[in-house]
């Protein structure tokens, strides 16, 4: 009996085989590189030949000036992105949902999804141009209001907000997809009942619409918690400059500079490992919460 069952499973195993091989070689084998976090890694000696130094790399990072500032920047930027990444799409979906003309609704949707699909290379190029203090269109618009010479990308105070706002601008449209889908799923008889009870549009939104999409909002909030240390490498790397390191440097860019530029593989891997562990705790915790309160399971 068991043999027959095993034979029945054989096609499934065969289907998975190529992907398993590729993932093992490309994703699992490199994981052994994590050992470097505990080594004084010297490229010529290799991972197995380098000296094991315990937690010295971690001590080195903690004692490095500015590490905690970088950690703070990372959490600050990613937290603001998470908050706006929920609030803006929810609000915009509610607004779109109020529109009755289908062609208008669809045109708005098509256009606001677009920035999501453009790379941070293209968008950074655009941002650098439009935010340029001398020739950019932003400065000529601000000039009308009597505001001059704002250097958005060179001012350490403004830089984190530029990051958060431009990221929200890129992603808010795409974020509405999931809420709009939930909104169309609301039973119309709920609204009819509310109208019979004398509820106006605001009250309908407050008492019918929002409670109906409450779960999906909670779910998206919980799931985004896993990104608490992902402040967005692609964006920051292409927009920052030494002038804004004090507020704009994040863990991922720090890893890049230590690891690739200075070739200090040990400390760079150590920061990467710290990031992975913290993210793992947040993801595992948030999935637990999602399963408990949102009744949500991916698998």
């Amino acid at each position, binding site marked *: 009996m068991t043999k027959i069952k095993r034979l029945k499973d054989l096609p499934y195993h065969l289907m*998975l085989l190529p992907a398993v091989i590729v993932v093992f070689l490309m994703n699992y084998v490199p994981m052994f590189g994590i050992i470097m976090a505990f080594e004084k890694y010297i490229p010529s000696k290799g991972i197995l030949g380098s000296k094991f130094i315990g937690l010295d790399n971690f001590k080195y990072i903690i004692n490095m000036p500015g590490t905690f500032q970088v950690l703070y920047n990372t959490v600050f930027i990613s937290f603001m992105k998470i908050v706006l990444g929920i609030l803006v799409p929810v609000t915009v979906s509610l607004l779109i949902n109020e529109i009755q003309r289908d062609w208008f609704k669809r045109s*708005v949707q098509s256009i606001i999804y677009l920035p999501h699909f453009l790379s941070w290379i293209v968008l950074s190029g655009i941002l650098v141009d439009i935010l340029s203090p001398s020739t950019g269109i932003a400065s000529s618009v601000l000039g009308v209001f009597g505001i001059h010479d704002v250097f958005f990308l060179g001012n350490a105070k403004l830089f984190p907000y530029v990051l958060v706002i431009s990221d929200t601008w890129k992603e808010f449209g795409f974020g509405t997809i999931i809420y709009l889908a939930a909104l169309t799923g609301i039973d119309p008889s709920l609204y009819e009942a509310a109208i019979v009870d004398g509820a106006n549009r605001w009250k309908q939104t407050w008492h019918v619409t929002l409670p109906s999409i409450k779960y999906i909002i909670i779910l998206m909030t919980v799931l985004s918690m896993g990104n608490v240390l992902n402040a967005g490498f692609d964006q920051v790397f292409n927009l920052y400059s030494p002038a804004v390191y004090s507020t704009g440097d994040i863990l991922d860019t720090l890893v890049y500079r230590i690891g690739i530029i200075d070739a200090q593989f040990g400390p760079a891997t150590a920061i990467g490992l710290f990031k992975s562990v913290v993210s793992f705790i947040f993801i595992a915790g948030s999935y637990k919460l999602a399963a408990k309160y949102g009744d949500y399971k991916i698998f």
Partner: protein
Amino acid sequence: MKNKSFSGKIFMIVNVSILIFLTLICVLPLINVLSISFSSSAAASAGKIKLLPVDFNISSYKYVLSKHEFIISLIVSFKRLFLGVIVNMILTILVAYPLSKDNKTFRSRSIYTWFFLITILFSGGLIPTYMVLRSFGILDTIWALILPGAVPVFNVILLLNFFKEVPIEIEEAAFIDGAGPWLSLLKIYIPLSTPSLATIVLFCAVGHWNSWFDGLIYMNNPSHYPLQSYLQTVIINTDMSRVSASQLKDMALISDRTTKAAQIFIGAIPILCVYPFLQKYFTKGMTLGSVKG
């Protein structure tokens, strides 16, 4: 549910205005850059361009398209896009189908699921991946850009949730008629999942087109850079030491700003072209599998 009261009308006007404002915010920067790319360098450096080109001309496009490195990187990008999407799609389908079965039908399912899920949570990171690619001798080849992300796990999740929605009875009927899992996947699941597959093709294609960092790291020879990596080096990290004397002369003629704008725009063109066709699919493909009420 038409609301014709006065306050209702005011709300509608405000609402429509807000939405039009948001829509404009999403396109105007693109239009601004587009018109800069078609303007004369004098107008560009004077900062006179708003939404329409000033002194319309195409010299910056001529210059960009005559640059050898630009064309080479464009070819690398298309090669990557083509090969990468094929590899992604084959592996995504082959993984999603077995994992969409329940534990009774396919008993090793959970082990495989965790095998793939762990790669989302943990990765060896850039440097170890670099070493592995080097030891296989595929550094500096197109495969270095394709194999590390060959199985896009998020897309697998999307597709397997979609596969789960296919009524099991169809497959059971096929099995009774003597079909096996391979035939069922080919003749039932794939044809029934076109919205989802189109969505995933879009996501994979966009992912490959937009990737830039792996190109910078895994390609030692700049002539192997895909377009976005190349653009990163010329638009964002302009390194004047690499510019030759003849190029400097050209740049004096056609301003850095307009050529940059032209390159930015060319970098976005393929996405602007495919996007409208796939757009009707991806909202459907994304939400059917994930939202339940």
